[in-house]
């Protein structure tokens, strides 16, 4: 029978969700349920002089009002979970409600709990907070300057950490034939999942158990961290995730809000729910990117890049987010040289406190930013030495014979064939014909641009020993239990936490191929800390590469136990038992056979098992991979810029991605497609806007441009398959590749279109007004 892995199988998850039978957190109604609303600071930086909660308390339906002072000593600060050795991190205290000082627009200062969400919100407006406004700052480079407003007494110059990876000397640059400098900034964006953040805590005063439903990409991390924040024992804390409408990194973080709802439930002995409004999401959900990067690139006239030296000013917000310190230092800093064999690379990162919301992982987390920097720079370098950008990439790629390849900063890439993906993209786009067409259209006064971006991603998090070495406060292995029921159907448990990725579908394909039972007989359980023993969640494109492989390995163990039972029942040697299509049989005698279902029953009944064997058919695996996986690819964007208006139209978008073995092309394409929308969105439209003091100005979808389907042509996708040697399937991450590759592809295309007009660089997002102004200025820096 044909293997199911590799097939386009329709997603199992969808019928439930598209027929209105899903259960999202806000759908949940529990008797006695209370609702919370959080009062947030409207000032970027202010001392809290006093809070008058009397009017709110008198409002009918209000059950409780809490301030930071009320909770002092009762809830601990929410910590970061990534402390890179050698970064001299100054971690400040993020109290769930600010006690004396609010440090960003959206910082919680009080919480109202009432019998309906409308009452809670009305009463929140009755709370009078007297603020003493303090000097404030939003921009990370400005925050480092002398005389800048200081956000914490204990953090001189607002520098939360400084981290240097690699070394490039002045001589390395001075002695080069060609030296180029550029600034490549990725602006702050809001993750904006369809479903905002939320939590529902239900404390049982009888048992002392606390059940917390929370919009989380990693419920076990939430349990671990919240147990510390709440001084609550981990084994009594049950974290569950309902159906969840997206995360994109914004739901990795452990937030104050979840701790507050939990505390209120314990204090009031009633269930309490909080659902973030969209305006709140823009204020108080971890943002993405916001890195300002200055790069020096050294190379030869014939196209070889010899050194890269970057300084990254990373805005980390007013408090450290859960993964905040790791993204600019590790994900960005160690990937500086991308897909290229560049001898020397150095990245100095300043993590800067500012009066803005915290910055955490957002789809790609450091890799889209570094790829944007590198791929924009490679194009600028190509233009400087008058060489085709395709050629420059080809010259500098690590070649497939060099794998496992060690990059300039010591990361070991598992496998790759970068030329293959580039060649396919060139062929698929008909690149040379496009260049010719570009020339012809320029004659007519039309400006089309072709943008190339070749990326490599650090994904499939990962080997736990490395996690330890880079200061990640946890492991990154994955666990799976395969439980076979007496009738032969199977429930599989894993520690990855799908919220749209389709794990139920793809992981079932893996199990189906191994067990040979009907696809419908396989069921998955995720997102529940009581059902799943331990796991590390879904981020870093790790679910398939680590979790999917754990599922496969646990299933292998089931097959092996079944083989021993079959040998016993069929009175044959274990070595002589074959297993195919769900049937155990004796080699050379197919009439002696037992189906998987018969073995399941025999194992569960345990009437007759091999001597010493325990009953049941259930196996668990903890899979700790030996390395990360490194997906790669080349994207080509073709745009036309209307030079009268600055309007950009995407004419074509070609994506050739390599994520190793593809389990389900439909699901993988869905990931690439969504990723491209987010990357191109960053390049052309999206952007969180603060004024220089940190007053948020983009608090709704009227003020924040989200990419929409009709902004795009049909995305032309294709995969090459270079297997990873670090896991059984040979799969790599896929979920972040689209974003990582696409920011630079779109931006390079626009710069390519405008090159004849003398425009060299425009800050993202490339909105028509900015593009138009740059065209008016021509060669002058915009």
């Amino acid at each position, binding site marked *: 029978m044909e293997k199911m892995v590799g097939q386009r199988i329709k997603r199992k998850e969808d019928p439930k969700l598209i027929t209105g039978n899903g259960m999202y957190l806000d759908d949940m109604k529990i008797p006695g349920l209370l609702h919370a609303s959080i009062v947030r600071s*409207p*000032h970027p930086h202010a001392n809290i002089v006093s809070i008058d909660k009397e009017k709110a308390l008198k409002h009918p339906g209000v059950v409780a009002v809490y301030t930071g002072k009320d909770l002092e000593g009762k809830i601990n600060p929410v910590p970061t979970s990534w402390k890179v050795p050698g970064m001299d991190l100054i971690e400040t205290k993020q109290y769930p409600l600010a006690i004396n000082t609010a440090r960003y*627009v959206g910082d919680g200062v009080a919480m109202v709990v009432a019998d309906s969400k409308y009452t809670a919100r009305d009463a929140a*407006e009755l709370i009078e907070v007297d603020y003493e406004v303090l000097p404030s700052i939003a921009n990370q480079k400005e925050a480092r300057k002398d005389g800048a407003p200081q956000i914490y007494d204990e953090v001189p110059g607002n520098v939360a950490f400084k981290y240097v990876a690699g070394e490039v000397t002045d001589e390395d640059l001075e002695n080069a034939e060609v030296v180029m400098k550029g600034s490549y900034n990725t602006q702050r964006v809001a993750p904006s999942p369809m479903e905002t953040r939320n939590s529902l805590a239900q404390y049982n005063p009888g048992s002392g158990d606390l059940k917390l439903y929370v919009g989380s990409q990693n419920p076990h991390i939430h349990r671990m961290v919240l147990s510390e924040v709440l001084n609550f024992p981990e084994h009594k804390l049950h974290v569950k995730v309902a159906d969840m409408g997206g995360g994109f990194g914004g739901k990795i973080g452990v937030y104050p809000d979840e701790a507050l709802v939990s505390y209120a439930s314990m204090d009031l002995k009633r269930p309490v729910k909080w659902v973030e409004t969209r*305006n709140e999401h*823009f*204020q108080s959900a971890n943002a993405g990117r916001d890195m300002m990067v200055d790069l020096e690139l050294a190379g030869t006239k014939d196209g070889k890049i010899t050194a890269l030296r970057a300084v990254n000013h990373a805005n980390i917000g007013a408090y450290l987010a859960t993964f905040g310190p790791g993204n600019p230092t590790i994900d960005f800093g160690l990937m500086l040289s991308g897909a290229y064999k560049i001898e020397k690379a150095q990245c100095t990162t300043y993590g800067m406190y500012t009066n803005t919301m915290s910055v955490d992982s957002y789809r790609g987390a450091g890799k889209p930013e570094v790829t944007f920097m590198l791929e924009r720079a490679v194009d600028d370098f190509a233009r400087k030495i008058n060489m085709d950008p395709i050629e420059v990439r080809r010259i500098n790629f690590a070649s497939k014979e060099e794998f496992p390849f060690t990059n300039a900063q010591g990361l070991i890439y598992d496998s790759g064939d970068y030329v293959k993906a580039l060649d396919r993209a060139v062929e698929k786009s008909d690149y040379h014909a496009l260049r010719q067409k570009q020339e012809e259209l320029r004659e007519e006064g039309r400006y089309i641009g072709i943008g190339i971006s070749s990326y490599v991603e650090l994904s499939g998090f990962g080997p736990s020993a490395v996690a330890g070495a880079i200061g990640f406060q946890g492991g990154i292995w994955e666990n799976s239990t395969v439980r076979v029921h007496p009738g032969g159907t199977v429930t599989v448990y894993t520690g990855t936490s799908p919220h749209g990725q389709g794990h139920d579908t793809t992981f079932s394909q893996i199990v189906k191929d191994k067990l040979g039972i009907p696809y419908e007989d396989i069921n998955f359980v995720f997102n529940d800390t009581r059902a799943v023993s331990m796991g590390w969640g879904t981020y870093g494109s790790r679910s398939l590469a680590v979790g999917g492989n754990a599922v496969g390995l646990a299933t292998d163990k089931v097959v092996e136990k079944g083989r021993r039972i079959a040998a016993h029942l069929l009175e044959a040697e274990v070595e002589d038992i074959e297993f195919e299509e769900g049937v155990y049989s004796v080699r050379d005698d197919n009439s002696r056979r037992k189906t998987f279902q018969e073995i399941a029953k025999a194992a569960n009944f345990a009437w007759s098992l091999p001597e010493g064997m325990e009953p049941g058919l259930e196996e668990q695996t903890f899979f700790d991979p030996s390395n990360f996986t490194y997906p790669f690819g080349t994207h080509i964007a073709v745009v036309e810029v209307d030079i009268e208006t600055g309007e950009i139209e995407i004419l074509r978008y070609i994506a050739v991605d390599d994520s190793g073995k593809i389990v389900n092309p439909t699901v993988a394409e869905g990931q690439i497609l969504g990723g491209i929308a987010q990357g191109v969105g960053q390049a052309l439209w999206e952007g969180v806007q603060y*004024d*220089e*003091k940190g*007053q*948020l*100005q*983009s*608090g*709704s979808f*009227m*003020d924040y441009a989200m990419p929409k389907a009709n902004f795009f042509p049909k995305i032309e996708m294709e995969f090459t398959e270079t297997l990873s040697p670090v896991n059984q399937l040979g799969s790599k991450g896929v979920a972040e590749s689209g974003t990582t590759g696409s920011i630079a592809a779109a931006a390079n295309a626009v710069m390519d279109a405008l090159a004849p007009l003398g425009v060299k660089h425009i800050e993202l997002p490339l909105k028509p007004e900015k593009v138009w102004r740059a065209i008016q200025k021509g060669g002058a820096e915009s």
Partner: protein
Amino acid sequence: MGVEIKHKYTFKNLSKQEVWDTIQDPEALQAALPNCEVFEEVGDEKYKTVMKVNMGAIKGEFTADVQQIDKSEPDSYRLLVKARGKPGEIEANAKMVLEEIAEGTELSCEADVSTTGLMATVGQRMVGGVAKVVLGQFFKDIEKQAKQAAGQ
């Protein structure tokens, strides 16, 4: 910083002094401010006002402290406004300059307005537009009153 607002209004057939007298008269001011329910003098050149605003997302009652400084009659003055309401806070610093021109008197207002709360996060893009409408109505009313006072 907040939003910069520039607005010019021509008071036809009125002298600088005529415009000045009206625009400095608390009763005339209260009548001219749209939906102004309270306008009390609370100190030297200091007033307390309560105004209702209803424009899209910006909706609610604002309590404002208004102060006039740097007065140079009848040429210029500076208006400081600190308003607070459910949709957020508004802080404005406006330079008002009167100049006689052929048609009458031109008043130019240059203000720097910063906001917080919903006013800032979802209302920012509307502040300029709203201010234009409010100022337009205000000056038109002042013009009417000044003309009445001048017996025109």
